[in-house]
């Protein structure tokens, strides 16, 4: 866990011809195999940060180092080869006319020989459980299925890092959980790093580390337990609090002696069972 995969130093960004600074002097490291949740309210710069890491936007100043490669115009494609992204809208990232050709799109771009492509596409299909839909076109798939295809497209590229740019935000709660579990399972098998940009606080609690972004600055980071215990701050940032924490807070108001730390759902249940 101690080798850095992404290292960001003094990153600044603002859109041309606009006054407001989107990212102001951000520095942080991400380690190999970590699951990072990047949270923050709308317009806090989360998506911008993701796009900067993938070289889809050019920073104003600062350095981005991905797997020991310093991101600049010449190394752009080397860096992109290490990163796969899954975006928010399932429809707008489906390039191929059917599931298989969509998964193959990224492989075609990299000039991978056809025989290998077939192997990799089929393997990716199997990993996300979409073999039955191999020849379906996107109009016959549900939102969750389309996102699974997007994940298969990402996996097929064998990336070091997968960035989920609010990939679950257009899915129903069930689809969200399914997708997150799927990615988590794949992460363990394939050993890649996940950066998940999310609005969903419950999703963020599953991460190894949470970064909270507010108005272009990282205001706090740490394990979910550390970050979410700081309730008052979260509310002022326009973010929700995890559900178990909400209950703990309400209980505290009513005079119960809730332990002074963040409780996960099962920890809260255990504690409640031992009460009295």
């Amino acid at each position: 866990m101690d080798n850095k995969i992404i290292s960001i130093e003094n990153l600044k960004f603002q859109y041309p011809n606009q006054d407001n600074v989107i990212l102001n002097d951000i520095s942080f490291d991400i380690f190999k195999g970590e699951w990072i949740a990047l949270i923050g309210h709308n317009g806090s710069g989360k998506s911008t940060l993701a796009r900067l890491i993938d070289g889809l936007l050019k920073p104003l100043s600062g350095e981005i180092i991905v797997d020991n490669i310093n991101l600049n115009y010449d190394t752009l494609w080397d860096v992109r080869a290490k990163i796969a992204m899954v975006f928010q809208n399932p429809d707008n990232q489906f390039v191929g006319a059917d599931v298989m050709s969509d998964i193959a799109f990224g492989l075609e771009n990299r000039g991978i020989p056809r025989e290998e492509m077939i192997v990799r596409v089929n393997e990716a299909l199997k990993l996300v459980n979409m073999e039955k839909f191999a020849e379906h076109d996107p109009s016959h798939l549900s939102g969750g299925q389309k996102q699974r295809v997007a994940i298969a497209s990402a996996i097929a590229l064998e990336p070091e890092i997968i960035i989920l740019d609010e990939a679950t935000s257009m899915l129903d709660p069930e689809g969200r959980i399914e997708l997150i579990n799927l990615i988590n399972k794949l992460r363990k098998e394939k050993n890649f790093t996940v950066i998940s940009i999310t609005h969903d606080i419950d999703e963020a609690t599953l991460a190894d580390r949470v970064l909270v972004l507010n108005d272009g600055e990282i205001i706090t980071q740490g394990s979910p337990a550390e970050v979410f215990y700081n309730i008052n701050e979260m509310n002022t940032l326009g973010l929700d609090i995890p559900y178990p924490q909400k209950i703990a807070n309400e209980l505290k108001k009513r005079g119960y002696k809730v332990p002074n730390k963040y409780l996960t759902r099962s920890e809260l249940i255990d504690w409640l069972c031992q009460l009295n």
Partner: protein
Amino acid sequence: MNKLLLGRYLNGNSLIHRMDPRSKLMMSFYFICIIFLANNYITYAILLLLALCGIVLSKIKISFFFKGIIPLIWLILFTVALQVFFTPGGHVIWSYGPLTLSKAGIVNGVYVFFRFVLIIVMSTLLTLTTAPLEIADAVEALIKPLRYLKVPVHEIALMLSIALRFVPTLMDETVKIMNAQKSRGVNFGEGSIISRIKAVIPILIPLFVSAFNRAEDLAVAMEARGYRGGDGRTKFRVMKWHLRDTGLIITFIIITILLLIFRNY
């Protein structure tokens, strides 16, 4: 609306379905050319027989082909009427002012009718048995030589396949926008033509806005997946030329020869 554009492809496993889209596309165009060689009942009978064979081999119900003809029936009848009433010569049966009804005119009208029907049946056969994506691939393969004339063949092909892929998405979007407008009291089915056209504008504007947003998202997603133009790309979908495709071309050559022989009978 969906049915009109794309829903016409019928999944199947017939001989015609399994043919290479390139040979099917080429021969469909070729058919439209050689149809002009037909000039008497024998030659038309040959072509009709060919079309009939195609229909039988495709294992598709004949009613689907009629569905292809129906939208164009007024155009066909109009052209036939022009042929019937304005063909001079032959034995005149009836005349009124510039209109003459002659035997030659009636024969010509029948030929024109069959010409239309044959063209429609053959192109319907192509679209019913070939998936849109296959057609796009075939177009790419066939225009490939234009690369040497600096035509951006890869870009055109990609645009074509993305356009095809987004047709159903945008159709859904249109229905959604229409429902949203309807729920606010817009009536699309009533009023004068002008008010009906006006009612379309509030559909088109949001549709355009969302199409541009989608295009931008798609461009970012494509770039994130390493798209950097056609150079150095490999292809996942390949087309295979089989014996049956060579057979199709030989059939068409034989038909052409037959037409050339019998047109002078």
